[in-house]
C-alpha cells in the first residue's frame, strides 16, 4: 500500500444534504478523510504500471490498450479493493502486491465491460476520446474486450494461487459473491433490454435488479476479493456486500442524473439513455411525479430534448439525487461494524463523493 505521507492530499467535496448525512457517519475525522482519500484514491498510480505491463505486449491489441490506458477512469473498483483489504489493520492478509494485483484484475474486467458496453450502446465517445469500437472497429473491440477479460482472469488466478492461506475461503462464505457471479454483469445487460411494466413499483424493482447486476457485480467483487485478502470475517464480508450494493445504486443514479443534465465533464454525449428510452431513476421519478409524463414517455416520436426539458422541470433530478444520498448513507451504515481505520473512512468518503458528483 502506498505510504500516506507521500500522497498528494485531495480536497473532499461535500455539499448540501450529503454533508448533513455524512457528518453523522464520519465521526468527525476530517483530516483522516483527506489522508484516506489520498491513500486509496491513488491506487490508480500503483495499478497503472502493472496493467500496462500485462496489456502493452506486442499483439494486435497493443494500440487499443494504449488508447484505453491513456485516459484512465476513476479507478473506483481498484480503490474499493484496496480499501477493503486494509479495513482490519491487525489481521493477517495477503501481501500488498497481491492486493494491487486484485485491484488490477477487477479494473481490467471493468475496462473490458466498458468496451463491450460501448458496442451495445453505440457510444462513440468514452472519457472524452473516441470509444474503442469507434476508433478500432466493432469486431476488433469485441475481441480486445474478451482478451482483456482473459488477462484479468489469468492475473486473478495467479494472485489467488500465490496466497492460498489468504484466499482459502473464496467461494465458501454464504451471501458473498466472487468470480463465479460475474455472469450477472451480462445478465444485467440483457435484463435492461427487457421492458418492465410501466408502473412505479415494477419500474423501480426492475431498475434495482439491473443496477445490482450491471454496476453492483464488480463493486461486490472488488469488496469480496479485497475483504478476503484483508482477513475480513464472514459477517464483515456480508456487510461489504451490502455496502457495495448501496454504493452501486448511488453511483448509477448519479450517472443517470449526469446523463440527463449533461455537462462538459460527462465525457460522452448526454441524453443517450433517454434516446434509447431506458427507464433510468430520474425517468422513474419523473413518471411518478407528473401525470402527463407517462404519455410523453410512451409516445415513440416524442423528441428526446422535450423529455429532457420536462424531466428537469419536474424536479426528478433532485429527487434522484436525494435517493442517491440515501443510498450513500445506507452504504456508510453497512460499514459501522468495522473499526475506524483510514480504509473505512475512505469507503465512507467514496460513498459521499459518488452521491455528490
Amino acid at each position, binding site marked *: 500500500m502506498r505510504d500516506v505521507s507521500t500522497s498528494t492530499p485531495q480536497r473532499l467535496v461535500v455539499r448540501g444534504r450529503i454533508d448533513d448525512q455524512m457528518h453523522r457517519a464520519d465521526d468527525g475525522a476530517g483530516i483522516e478523510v483527506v489522508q484516506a482519500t489520498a491513500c486509496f484514491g491513488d491506487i490508480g498510480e500503483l495499478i497503472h504500471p502493472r496493467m500496462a505491463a500485462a496489456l502493452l505486449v506486442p*499483439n*494486435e*491489441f497493443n494500440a487499443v490498450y494504449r488508447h484505453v490506458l491513456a485516459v484512465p477512469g476513476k479507478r473506483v473498483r481498484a480503490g474499493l479493493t484496496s480499501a477493503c483489504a486494509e479495513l482490519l489493520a491487525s489481521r493477517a492478509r495477503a501481501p500488498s502486491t497481491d492486493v494491487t494485483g486484485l485491484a488490477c484484475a477487477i479494473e481490467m474486467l471493468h475496462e473490458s465491460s466498458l468496451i*463491450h458496453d*460501448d*458496442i*451495445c*450502446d*453505440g*457510444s*462513440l465517445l468514452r472519457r472524452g476520446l473516441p*470509444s474503442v*469500437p*469507434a*476508433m*478500432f*472497429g*466493432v*469486431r*476488433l*473491440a*469485441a*475481441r*480486445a474486450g*474478451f*482478451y482483456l*477479460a*482473459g*488477462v*484479468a*482472469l*489469468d492475473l*486473478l*488466478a*495467479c494472485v*489467488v*494461487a500465490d496466497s492460498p492461506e489468504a*484466499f*482459502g475461503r*473464496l*467461494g465458501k462464505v*454464504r451471501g458473498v459473491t*466472487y*468470480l*463465479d*457471479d*460475474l*455472469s450477472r*454483469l*451480462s*445478465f444485467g*445487460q*440483457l*435484463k435492461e*433490454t*427487457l*421492458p418492465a*411494466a410501466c408502473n412505479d413499483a415494477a419500474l423501480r*424493482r426492475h431498475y434495482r435488479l439491473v443496477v445490482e447486476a450491471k454496476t453492483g457485480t464488480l463493486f461486490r467483487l472488488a469488496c469480496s476479493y479485497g475483504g478476503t485478502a484483508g482477513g475480513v470475517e464472514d459477517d464483515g464480508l456480508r456487510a461489504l456486500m451490502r455496502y457495495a450494493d448501496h454504493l452501486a445504486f448511488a453511483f448509477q443514479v448519479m450517472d443517470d442524473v449526469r446523463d440527463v443534465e449533461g455537462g462538459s465533464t460527462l465525457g460522452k454525449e448526454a441524453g443517450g439513455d433517454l434516446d434509447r428510452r431506458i427507464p433510468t431513476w430520474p425517468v422513474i421519478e419523473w413518471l411518478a411525479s407528473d401525470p402527463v409524463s407517462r404519455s410523453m414517455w410512451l409516445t*415513440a416520436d416524442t423528441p428526446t430534448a422535450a423529455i429532457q426539458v420536462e424531466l428537469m422541470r419536474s424536479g426528478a433530478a433532485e429527487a434522484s439525487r436525494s435517493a442517491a444520498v440515501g443510498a450513500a448513507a445506507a452504504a456508510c451504515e453497512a460499514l459501522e461494524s468495522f473499526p475506524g481505520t483510514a480504509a473505512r473512512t475512505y469507503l465512507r468518503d467514496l460513498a459521499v463523493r459518488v452521491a455528490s458528483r
Partner: protein
Amino acid sequence: MIFLLCGLAQLHRPPTLSALRAARTPEQLAQLALVPAARNLGVAIGLLPTRLRAEATAAVLSCRVLDAYENLAEWTVAGGAVIAAADYLAGTSDVMPPPLDAIAVRDSEAVDLLLAERICDVRALVSALPAVERERTGRMLSGVAEVMARNLDSPLSRLAYGEGVLGRVTLHACVLLAADAAAKVDLAELAGCVGYSAQLANDLRDDELASYDVADREELVSAVVLRLLTPALGSLALLRWLGSHTASRGARTAIAYLAITTSAFFCTATDAPAPYRKWWQLGAAVLAAQSADRWTTMVSRIGHSTDVAIHEFLNTSAQVDSMADGVPAALRWSEAGIWSPSLHELTVETTFALVHELPEEPLTEELSVAHVRRMMLADHLAFSALERVPACDTDGMRSLARRFMLASTSNNSSSKGHP
C-alpha cells in the same frame, strides 16, 4: 408398446393413488407409478428396451423417494433422512429412514409420499438389478442424496443444485444408454447442463419465486430464460453425442422424446413455437431415432426453437420490427459439427462465432438490434462459463483465461467457418 400406450394415457390424468397402494409386487408398483411419478420421463423409460428399463425405473423411482424426503420431511431432520433413504435404497444400510409425517399438496408430492411409504418395494427394484447396475445406481443415489442434504443445510445455487442432482441422474442415464462409449469420455459437464436445464424447467413449472428472489411469474420466466443459454448449449451437445453413441433405437427414441418435450416446455413459457406440435412429439422422436440424418435434423430444430424462444423473450415489439438483418443464432454451434465434452470449449467457440459476425468497421452510429444482441449474448455466454469455475480453482481460471486470449487473437479461428 402396451406400457407406452398406458403411459401416454396416464400422462395428463391425476394419479390413482388407490391403485398404487393396491399394487401387490414391486414390479406392479413400478409399472403403475412410473408415469405419475416421472411424467414425460416415465413415458420415455417406457420406450427403452427391457434390459435398460429395469435399471432406469429403479433409479427414477428411488430418486422420487429421495425427493419426498427432501421436500416433505421435517426440515431439521430432512438432510439425515435423505442420506438414510439413499443408503437404504442402495442396500448399503438395512436401517430404514424415519417414516414421513406429511401432507402432500400437489399430485406429484402425493405419489412421492406413497413411494416413500413403500420404500421397501422400491429398494427391492434396486436389489433385483445385476451387481454392476445395482452398484452404479447406488452410487448415483448416494451422490444425489449428498447434494440434497447439502442444499438443505445451506441452500446451493440453482446451478450447483441442478448439476448435482439432475445432472448426476443424467450422467447415470448416459452410462446406462451408451455404456461403452460413455466410459471413454467425461460427459459430466454436458450432463450437468441437462440437469440444470431440467432444474430450470422444474422451477418454472413449480413457480419457484423464492429460489430466484423474484416477485412474480413474469420475473421468474425472465430469470429462468436468461440462465438458459449455456445449459441449452451443453444439452444440445450431449443430445448430438447420444444420437451417434446410443445403440438401441428405443433408447434413442426415449432421448429424443425427452428433448422434444423439454424444449417445448421452454418454448411455451416464452410464447415461442415449439419444435414440434404436441400431437407429433412422439412421432418426431420415433422418426429421429431412425437415422443419423434425421437425428441431426431434430437436434437442429430443437436448437433453432430454443434460439427463437430466447430471442422472442428478449424482443420488444419495437425491436422485432428493426431486426432486419436476422435473429443471431446463439446456439448455431449445434449445427456446426464441432463437438467437445468441455463446456468451456463450447462456450468460447460459440462466443467467438457470434463475435465474428460483428461488423469490422469502426462504430459510427448505433448498431442494429441484431448486432447488439450478438454482442450481449456473446458476453453472457463468456461470463456464464465462469459460473462453473469454483472461486478457488485457479487451474480452471487459468485454463479459461487462456481460451479467451487464444480465441481473441485468432481472428481466423475455426469459429469463422461456422455456418
